[in-house]
């Protein structure tokens, strides 16, 4: 299988879906002529032209709302937020219009939109640009939330998100855009709501989503080589819908859990997962559920210190060893 970057995988997903469905249109700031602020849409405007790849002014509220309105008429807009951190200025359009219009119309109106962009800290751009809003959005029934850790997942999940008939919030990561993975040349899709076991293990489960999974995998290797402990790593991939069975199966197998989460701890995705494990697998636990999240303060700028604010291999190891 060819090795391609996470960025190229997304690019392929867009190109394939644009070719597959005439209603798919990419819209956002700098997505067309500039080739994307992070080059995720590179070459697509040249290939598909003005109608399918559309630059907007810096007006997130209007262009996200425009995408929602167009989706109500049957288009499948794929809207780029240059950073998910900018969702704040379009929040009404996202949660009230994309998120509620189907419900409030008694099911008469659908909103098959994808809103996507990077949602991560760790790039020294300060607190306003470093939000991880998957927990804010997953808290809204009506929205779906997806987070891809690898190029393979990014492509397969994005294609599914575009074909889905509900609004899907797709979380990417600027630190992963350049990471390479094996991605098959033949077409594939990955259903939403299905987690992926990124590493089989027997002694402890690391469960999370997005880049935190890659950090957890590194921690798992060290646990194996230095402590002879075999950790399982479960990548949620989709936060809403959530693969409850995969989570509980892993807990029933290993009896110990550390949730890894680049969200802040308060009401982070891992808080929801923790509650679920406590209610549904209490008797299977041999230790309290541990959590390793981003440290609970606004994202600090200082580059070396910000690295410590995100979940680190060291913190995951320490938490794991404390409950083993």
């Amino acid at each position, binding site marked *: 299988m060819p090795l391609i970057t996470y960025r190229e995988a997304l690019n392929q997903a867009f190109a394939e879906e644009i070719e597959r469905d005439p209603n798919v249109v990419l819209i956002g700031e700098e997505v067309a002529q500039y080739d994307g602020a992070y080059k995720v849409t590179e070459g697509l405007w040249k290939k598909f032209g003005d109608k399918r790849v559309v630059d907007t002014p810096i007006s997130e509220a209007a262009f996200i709302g425009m995408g929602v309105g167009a989706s109500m008429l049957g288009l499948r807009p794929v809207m780029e937020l240059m950073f998910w951190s900018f969702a704040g200025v379009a929040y009404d359009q996202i949660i009230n219009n994309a998120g509620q219009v189907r419900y409030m*119309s*008694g099911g008469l109106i659908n909103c098959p939109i994808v809103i996507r962009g990077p949602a991560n800290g760790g790039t020294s751009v300060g607190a306003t640009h470093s939000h991880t809003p998957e927990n804010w959005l997953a808290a809204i029934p009506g929205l779906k939330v997806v987070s891809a850790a690898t190029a393979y997942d990014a492509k397969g999940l994005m294609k599914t998100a575009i074909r889905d008939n509900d609004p899907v919030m797709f979380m990417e990561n600027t630190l992963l855009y350049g990471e390479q993975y094996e991605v098959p040349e033949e077409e594939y899709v990955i259903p939403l709501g299905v987690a992926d076991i990124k590493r089989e293990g027997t002694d402890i489960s690391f469960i999370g989503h997005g880049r935190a999974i890659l950090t957890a995998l590194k921690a798992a290797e060290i646990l194996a080589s230095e402590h002879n402990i075999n950790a399982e790593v479960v990548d949620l991939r989709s936060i809403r819908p959530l693969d409850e069975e995969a989570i509980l199966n892993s807990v029933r197998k290993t009896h110990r859990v550390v949730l890894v989460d680049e969200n802040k701890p308060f009401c982070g995705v891992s808080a929801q997962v923790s509650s679920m494990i406590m209610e549904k697998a209490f008797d299977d636990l041999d230790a309290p559920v541990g959590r390793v999240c981003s440290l609970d303060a606004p994202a600090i700028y200082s580059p070396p210190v910000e690295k410590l604010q995100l979940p680190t291999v060291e913190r995951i190891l320490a938490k794991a060893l404390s409950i083993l």
Partner: protein
Amino acid sequence: MTETPAETEVSPVDYAKAPINASLSPEDQVRMLKDMIRIRRFETTALSHYQQGKIGGFLHLYNGQEAIAVGAVSLMGDNDHIITAYRDHGHALAVGMNMNECMAELFGKATGCSKGKGGSMHFFAPDKNYWGGHGIVAGQTPLGLGLAYGLKYKGLKGAALCFLGDGAVNQGCFYESLNMAALFDLPVIYIIENNGYSMGTSLERSSSIDKCLAQRAEAFCIDWVQAKGEDLYEVRAVIQEAITRAHEASKPTVIEFDTYRYYGHSVADSRWKGGYRTAEEVEKHKRDHDPIQILKKRLVGAKLLSEEQYEAIDAEVKTETNEAVKFANESPFPTEASIFEDVYFEVDRQTEAGRTGRHFFND
């Protein structure tokens, strides 16, 4: 010395003679009067049932503004779409939603147009090109932009009529939308129903303007017009021009209609008479600027309608309204299980995607 201009109630243009109106049949004109009466009776009936505790939440009444919704909708073709804010009952009835489903929605019943899930502010009928019914002030203005975008993308000759109030014009997303409408040449028509008050704050206290609110469109190189909203013919003539611009040139327009609401911002507004506006002001508008009376007078004057016929129409509407109340009263409330319906398309349809993973987190 400045000469005081003579005050006059006579419009310099007789809009009844505009081609779009001159071509109307007598039946069409009477039907539009009836549509306005239907809206008024529906609203007044809703108010009395709100006061009886049958209706929850907010209730924003359209009394006094009827000519605008009825005039606008009367011009819509197959590819013209309409969207508005929370004062949405008038537009709903104008597009042809029936009183039963609208009243039942207010009563929170399963037979309501939104199955009792939307309430007063959230009426929708996409089969009639009516996209709501939106509760957040100006939140619908980017959606109207999107409807126009969708029309243009699909190569359809249509327009998106997006209504907003005079309070909504001070929200940022409206200006972002105007910029994009002009930039992308989108066939959206923003229709400001200026009833003088954004809730309890008068126009003078809420908006910094030169001539009028619509004039702000100049900043975006968008054509605009200010007109009276009390005369159905004027409403139709003005909107028709914008529709033609949308259809033929794919260009936006901003229209501002001066209008007046007879009741408060919502029924929760206790200061609508004698608070932020005087009782005399309300009475003056009812007496001199009532859109139903203005149209009735025209039709009677032109011998297209007799007093008896008017009374008969009113009686017919009264019966329709009473039946709607009966229907709403007798309809069941939604089931508790229905709380989880209409959240996700894929779950409702039980597609493979809807059966994969957990969508709800109650237990």
